[in-house]
């Protein structure tokens, strides 16, 4: 299924509605009842207009505390592993296995040299660390693909397991932050963000909360 919206908030809302309407029900490995759409593609054409709006919406509830945007940004941009997290994206992106800075030493020089390149891929899945059947603490965001189209830097993110209500707003913001960083270095505008959620899911016990959040609009 594909969703294409101009703004982040509309894309989020459409994705949630799609999962609630068409998702198949199943029980996950943590015994939670879920609704899931497989391989859901969501394209946000102009994320810069309201990329934090879903986060702002989630922040309005006093039932939970959503991570602050600086912490969400930190996770993807900090190059050293903050010890209080089981894993974080930043070190994998900027210092993969202590050997490769995938952004500054690859993506940016590659797209500078060859703006139409289709090789600008960041990998966040480390088989050495994560191919262990007992290890459940593995990243959801597993790769990002950057392409320059009509002078705009677009990004496509592959997310293997995506909680569309709580997780997607943070993921889109993380993608936007990294996209903006690279776009600035390339002297390009930040373009669209597309997420392909291999498992786009919601939890049945979230349905009331979801309804309350959208009723406020």
């Amino acid at each position, binding site marked *: 299924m594909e969703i294409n919206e101009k703004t982040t908030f509309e894309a989020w809302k459409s994705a949630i509605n799609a999962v609630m309407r068409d998702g198949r029900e199943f029980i996950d490995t943590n015994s939670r009842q879920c609704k899931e759409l497989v391989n859901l593609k969501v394209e946000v054409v102009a994320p810069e207009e309201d990329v934090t709006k879903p986060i702002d919406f989630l922040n309005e509830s006093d039932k939970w505390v959503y991570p602050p945007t600086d912490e969400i940004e*930190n996770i*993807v941009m900090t190059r050293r592993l903050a*010890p*209080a997290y089981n*894993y974080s994206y930043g070190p994998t992106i900027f210092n993969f296995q202590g050997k490769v800075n995938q952004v500054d030493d690859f993506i940016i020089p590659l797209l500078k040299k060859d703006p139409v390149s289709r090789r600008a891929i960041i990998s966040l899945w480390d088989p050495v660390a994560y191919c262990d059947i007992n290890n459940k603490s593995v990243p*959801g965001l597993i790769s990002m693909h950057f392409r320059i189209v009509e002078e705009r830097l677009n990004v496509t993110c592959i997310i293997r397991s995506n909680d569309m209500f709580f997780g997607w707003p943070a993921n889109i913001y993380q993608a936007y932050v990294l996209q903006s960083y690279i776009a600035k270095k390339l002297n390009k505008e930040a373009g669209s963000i597309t997420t392909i959620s291999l498992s786009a899911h919601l939890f049945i016990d979230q349905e009331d909360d979801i309804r309350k959040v959208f009723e406020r609009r």
Partner: protein
Amino acid sequence: MNQIEYEILTVFKENPESELSTFDIISKAFPSEAEKIKIEINNEYNNKSTTSEGRQSKGKIHRKVLYHLNRLVEDGILKLSREGTKGHKYFVLNIKPGEEVILEKRYKKILLKKPETAAIPLESYQKEGIVKQFEPATWVDRLNSILLQGWNFEDYNNLFKVISDSFQNINDVVGLDNFEMLLQKQNPEAFGAFIKKLCIECDDYGKKVNIIIDVTHLKKDKLPEIVEEMKIFEEVNPANIEMIFDVSAREFNQNYDLFEQVIDIFSRSKLKLNIKNRDVAETPYLIGKAGVYTFDEADWQLYKKFYKYKLKGIACAQASIAIDVYKYFQQRKSAKEFRDLLLKVAKTLLTVNSLQRMKSEEYFKNLMKLAEPMSKEFFMFSRNYIRLWNYGWKQPQSDPKMMFEMVKSIKEEIKTFCDSEETIYLSCGMPTRFKVAFGPAFREFDKNFSEMQFSRLQINGMDDFRSKEFKEILNAKEELFELFDGGDRIRFLRTGSINAEAIFNEIMTIMNSYKLAFICYDFGSVKGSDLKLTSFLK
């Protein structure tokens, strides 16, 4: 700008949110001088004149630095935040969170900036004295307590350095687990020197250290030596070092000779004898200024199975907030609002944890170095604390059962909140740990708590155990131990005549008859070893 002032301000530039004592500032600004003085004073092989010179140098550098600190206070750049024990002064940057200041004087320029601190949505409660942060100036950038493993250290010098370094990153207590491994490996004289040095260090930094002895590992042929070593506590009488015996009832019974002598030593020195009953709880217990600390039992089993021999130390507690329950119900009355308050406190702790996570490498530098290469695992077992003061136990005109039931249900709600937050963070690609434990607060947590409404538990002898009231009190305490998953302690003020065999039997009775994980026999009120019961009237 004077060079010394520049060095002082550089320390604050690197630690903008910290409250630093004169001693802290000297250690950071003039590390080689500080190290030299430490060696001169603490090295047991020095002669008297070297030690005396060291003390003089210490005094001299303190006076010099204090002079410049006072000038910076006069200039409005620093602020004297408080005076600690023994007149130690503590300083903070005198700029608001989020503010930035450039100081320029005679070709030297320094930029000072204080980052935003964790906003605490509990202002009205704080103003009324109902809610209190533990050590407000350092409650974000320091952990409350950590546990170090004794067998990871080769000798006392090595351990002392680690403790001293970790004092800069914690604001309450360092626990030394399995200390018996080091105790039985090193020579007895070295233990005495270590305790003396540690005493001074604890006083200088205003921190506590707990020495935990697992009786299982004590070798029979070493026991006489160990008893001799304990006598250092009589000599030094440390205010900030506590010894905790980790023992099962059976082991306690089997080691009568050891404990009879330990009771003698501790009662003579008017110290507290702390016993952690391993039949009731396997996890270690720590005693800090804020209260008692411990780990979750399931977490502890995981730690023992996979990490015990790999990690030099682990974080025990991150941040603590206390509620003065008596004051709350005096001023506000509503049970529903009390429930909402506790949830707000949990949310505040989450915010603090967020800051600590983002800046863990900056705030806890020494601890991260200690934990390498497993710094991620360092935080795997830590919790935050909600502590209660004057919550109803042994308080006349209060209904402890009502309070117990209310706190029990709030605890469940907070556990659900913590689990949900972990799930939210996980779904955002930020898998982390957020746990909150409940415990009672000690008086030392905050000097402005409401006046103690509960009576202390005095025990004069075995007869007390037979009284109905005494049994009810202990049974109630058992329930509180269940409620306070962050750890609790039952403290008996031992009065009356002191007879080691009688006290041994009392402790044996408690261990065999009650599910109380942490027992303290406080000999502090004993005026002499042969005072009669009638000398003490409530």
